[in-house]
Structures are given as C-alpha cells and as structure tokens.
C-alpha cells in the first residue's frame, strides 16, 4: 500500500472539447425529451459537461488507500485495446440512470474504447448473470453500477480468478478494496444526508416534524443518506423530530404513495426528506392531491435532476443536494491509469453542489 494518493487524473475540465460536444448532444437530446421542454443544457462554450456539470473529485474525502495492478493481480493493459463492460442496475426511466449510462457511453466513444453494456432492470439475479455474460463476451475491465451492495460472491470469485478489474460507480460493492474491486467512484452519501439535514433545519428554523422517504433497502446509498441526516438532526436540531420513515424504493410512484399515506396519518407534517428526486417529485404530486400548496411542507431531496430543480423555482421543493451521475470521464480515467500500472485511489469521492431558491433559476441548466 502506498501512503500518498498518486492517482494521476487530469482535471475533468481539461478533457478534450470533443467529449464535451458529444456529451452536449446527448444532454440536448435528453433535455428536449423532458416533459417540460427547457432550453438545452450548457452555455457559453457550447459544452455539455460544462464546469457546472462535470464531476470533480474531493481530494480530502477520498482517503489514502490506493490500488495498483500488481497488488490486485492480473495483467496490465492499454485501455484502447480492451473491451470494457458496463452493467447498469436500474431501468433508464430515472434521469440519474439515463445520464449515467449516456456519460459512460459518450466517454467510451470519445476514447474509442469498445464498450458492451447491459441493464438488469432492477432484477438482482439478472445483474449477476449480466456481469457474467459481459465476462463471457470478453470484457476485460468492468464498470458496475451495483443494484445491491451484497450478494456479489459468484462474480467476485470469477473476476478474482481472471484478474479482471472492477470499478463500481454510484453504489458500492461490499468487499475488500484492491482484492474484490479496484475502486469505488461516487458521492459521499453521508455528507449528502448531513447537507439535506442542514437544509431541513434551515427551512424549519430548527423546530418541527419531518418524514423520511427512504430509498431501496440493502445498499449503501440509502443507509448512508439516512445516517448522515439523522446524525446532523440529532446533533444540531433537538427541536426536530423524525416521525415517519418508509421506503419509496427510489421511484416516483413509491414516493407518491408513501406520501399519500403520510399526509393521511399525519396532515400536520412540516418537512419531507426524500432520498432522491424521483421520490421527492412523487411527494409533490401527493401533496398537491391532498390540497397542500407550494411551501406548506418543506421538501428536501437529493440528486439534482432538472424536474426537481424546476420544482424549486415553483416553490414546491426547498432544496436539492446534488448527486452527480456523470461517471464516464472519471471511471475511464481510473481504468486507464490502473491498466498502465499507476496507483489508483480505492475510494474516489466526488464533490456535489446544491440547489435552492437562491441559485435554482440561474443554474437549472446544470441539472440533468
């Protein structure tokens, strides 16, 4: 193990313009496909992953464990010569997943890397066979967006035997870094929870009842977004009580039906913390149906999708903590550096921004 993180990554801003243009095209397509046709994302330099959109590493949060290929096992490679397999976890009906897949595809195209993809449509046994299929088809590097953090034994046994590097994005695989997988790239979910708590405290002036719409059980995102939120509320706002916690499975329908139950059982609820935007938007629909108006219930969500940021402008959502899904550039940089024998940090944490009434209108173009 090396003490210093030597993972050499050029700042994402210095990425060639071509990528930016490719990403811009996708984003424009996505933006125009949105229900509320907004003007295309990006601004001045015509870029897609503009400064406001590209993922930026948080050096401080990353930790100092690194992984190099001779520790992990396996052969060095030149990324442009190998097949990369990408396994997406959930159906691309959620803007986060759409943007994530497009970012990976755009980066592969930009670098001229052969990419094979699969989507498990939220079926975990299917994701296991998907990844095994990717390996059968000759994938020598795997980028995985895991549906569940546990249950990867069959895949890990196989990749360890063959020395195939795994890069996990957005959710983690539970295992030993540099043995079961090379690196995890994602947000600091506990910090997202803490920042959501700060926004909730601000909205409620430290006094009131709050409900949590939990994400899907069994993965680190839900767990850490909950822990961070509760930790901050407990430490900073003894006047705020968490009265309700139920899973909306990270879906809009889930968020809506759970919120419908919530307002029936507790009409006086002051705030809702939705662990992703889709559930938050579902909550808005439910509150509207129950006769509430914008601002009656302070909603704080996590993700930074365009739909949610627009609800800030409309006054329904108080704040959105970003969770940036544009993993392509960082994932391929890590894969390239690892293949050429460099040390790669095993925990690459990105910085996330936030939207509230003060910047929503100006920065809605950065949302996805």
């Amino acid at each position, binding site marked *: 193990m090396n003490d210093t993180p030597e993972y050499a990554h050029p700042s994402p801003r210095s990425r060639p313009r071509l990528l930016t243009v490719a990403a811009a095209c996708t984003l424009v397509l996505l933006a125009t496909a949105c229900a509320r046709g907004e003007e295309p994302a990006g601004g001045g330099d015509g870029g897609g992953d503009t400064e406001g959109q590209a993922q930026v590493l948080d050096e401080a949060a990353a930790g100092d464990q690194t992984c190099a290929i001779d520790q992990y096992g396996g052969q060095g490679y030149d990324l442009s010569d190998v097949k990369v397999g990408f396994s997406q976890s959930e*159906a691309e009906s959620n803007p986060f997943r759409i943007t994530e897949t497009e970012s990976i595809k755009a980066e592969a195209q930009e670098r001229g890397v052969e990419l*094979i993809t*699969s*989507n*498990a*449509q*939220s*079926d*975990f*046994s*299917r994701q*296991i*066979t*998907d990844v*095994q*299929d*990717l390996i*059968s*088809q*000759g994938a020598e590097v795997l980028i995985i967006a895991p*549906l*569940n*953090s*546990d*249950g*990867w*034994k*069959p895949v890990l*046994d196989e990749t360890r035997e063959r020395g195939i590097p795994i890069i996990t994005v957005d959710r983690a695989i539970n295992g030993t870094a540099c043995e079961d997988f090379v690196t995890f790239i994602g947000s600091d979910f506990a910090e997202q929870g803490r920042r959501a708590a700060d926004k909730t405290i601000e909205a409620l002036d430290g006094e009131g009842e709050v409900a949590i719409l939990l994400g*899907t*059980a*069994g993965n680190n995102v*839900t*767990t850490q977004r909950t822990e961070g939120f509760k930790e901050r509320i407990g430490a900073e706002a003894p006047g705020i009580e968490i009265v309700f916690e139920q*899973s909306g499975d990270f879906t809009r329908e889930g968020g809506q039906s759970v919120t419908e139950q919530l307002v029936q059982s507790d009409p006086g609820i002051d705030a809702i913390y939705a662990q992703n935007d889709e559930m938050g938007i579902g909550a808005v629909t439910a509150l509207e149906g129950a006769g509430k108006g914008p601002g009656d219930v302070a909603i704080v969500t996590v993700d930074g999708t365009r739909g949610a940021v627009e609800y800030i402008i409309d006054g329904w959502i108080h704040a959105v903590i970003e969770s940036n899904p544009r993993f392509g550039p960082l994932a391929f940089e890590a894969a390239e550096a690892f293949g050429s024998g460099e040390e790669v940090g095993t925990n690459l944490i990105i910085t996330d921004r936030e939207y509230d009434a003060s910047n929503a209108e100006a920065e809605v173009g950065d949302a996805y």
Partner: protein
Amino acid sequence: MWRDLFQRHGALIVLAAVVVAAGAGLDGFLTAGNLDNVAVGASFLAVIALGMTFVIVTGGIDLSVGTVFALAGVLAAWASQYGSAAALLVPLVVCGAIGALNGALIARAGLAPFIVTLASMLGSLGLMLAVSREGTVTHLVPDGLALTPLVHGRLLGLVGHPVLLVVVLFAAGGVVLGRTRWGQYVYAVGGNEQSAALMGVPVGGVKAAVYTLSGLCAGLAGTLNAVWLGSGVTIFGIGTELEAIAAVVIGGTLLTGGYGFVAGTLAGVLLLKVVQNVINAVGGLSSAYQEVVSGLFLVVVVLAQKWLSRPGAAAPTAPHGPSGPARTGAP
C-alpha cells in the same frame, strides 16, 4: 401424433434451435464457462418451477413462491451463523410450513388458490422484511460454511453443483409425476376433480401435498441462492413467481390442469435464461427486449396449446379436462 410431440417437446425443440443458432452466430456462446453460467443461473428458478409444475398440473397456481424464495434466502443467511444444518433446516421448515398452510386453506377450506397464495405472497414478503429489519440488515453467509464449497463446486471443473442437483431433482420429479400412483392422482385432480374423488383419489390430500412441495422447492431454491450469493439479498421478491409460471407454461403444461411434465418445465426455464444470455450477447440490443421476447414465447406457446387442445385435434395422452362443444372452422 406430431401434435402431441410438439406439445410435449415444443420448448425443447425451440431451445435446441436457439442454442444452435446462437452457437453458430455468436462467439463465446458455446464455451463451457458461458453454458455453465447460464445453467447455474437457471438452476434456482428451475427448482422453483419444479414445485410449480405439480401445482399447475392439479389445476392450481402458487403466487407465493417469489417472496417465499426471498424469505428463504434471508432466513438461510441469518441461520448460517449457526452452521450448515441450520442454514438448510430453518428456511425449509418455515417455507414448508407456508406451503402446508396454503395447501390446508385450499384443500380443506376450499378457498381459491389464487387468493390464498396471493395472501401468503404478501405475508412472506412481510416476514422477510421483518427478519431483515425492513431490508436494512443484510445477513451474510460466514466464510468457511460447509455448504459453501458444496454449492460453489464444479464437477470435473465444468458442471456447477447446482446444475447436478437440478438434474437429480427433475429426474426424481419426473418419476414421481409420471410413474407413481401418486403422480396419477395429481393428473386426476387436475383433469376432473369430481371424477377423481369418485374414483377414490384423496383430492384434499393431493392438493395439500403439492402446495407443501411447492413451498419446499421455493425454500430450497432460496437457500441455495443465498449460499451462492454469499448473503441474504433482500431485494428479491415479487416477479419471480411469474417467471416460474411462464417457464412451466412454455414447457407445455396446461394452466387448466391435468396435463404437463417436468421435463418440459426444465426446457422452459432454460429457454428463458438462454434467451436472456443471447440478448446480452447480441451487442446493441437493449435488455428491455428480453421481456418482449419472453412475452412473445409465452403468447406463442399458449396459442399453440389452444390450437392443439381444440375439439377434434389429436388429444394429448393424459386427460386434460372436459372437451368443449364441437366447433367447426377453429383456427
């Protein structure tokens, strides 16, 4: 009797055609590693579908197997801290009991299988969430559990042990359904319950037994799956039962009961999984098409069944319910 042949072996014929086509057209499909992955990945669904075949042959349905499968996995992973025997026994006892309860309510209280097993589907889901504390706790199978190498092992380095178990279970299931008196009772109950009762078939006992068997099969599949994955994954559940039913029907078993065979079910399961594998291998095809293709297979098979069982068609060898009034010009 080619119609009967198609009814019996339709899934197998299509499976063979798909395998040949994929083997010719796709690199890496006919490799031992890929075939073993497909077979092992199919084996858990196969065990569930085996129990489902017996249920459907009696003219019933078991909607609870998906969540019972998930519950068994969580229970097995939880119990594995007390050793392999506990990891096997706890889920089998619980899931067997759920199956027996289904059977008792359907056979003795005369309730509709659809409603009873829908209720136990929800009940098992609740139980699973309770054991895993709303899914926030994932129980892990400890390293060094004696069962783990048994499940992960490969015969001659090629054939995964779950596949061997499936072969043994299906052979036993085939003998029981096709060659024993009890198997004849199962067909008789599905063919015509009243006549079966008049002939002295213990209708209630047979029904209770098939639902218990189905619960046990789902429990065994969940247990094996948990050991295979190394943890009690909580996000399984609703949906698996439909896949099992689809596999049984594609395998040639009639949903109306009285007719079917376990070998067809095995072919049906493999067909679903091979299609998934092939679609993954064909670059550029969205995986959403897997559902489309599975759905198409289902429609085609049910249409074929309808056509084959029309009045005047060569009747399948086993009884499968009273024939309708004679029609002419049927498709």
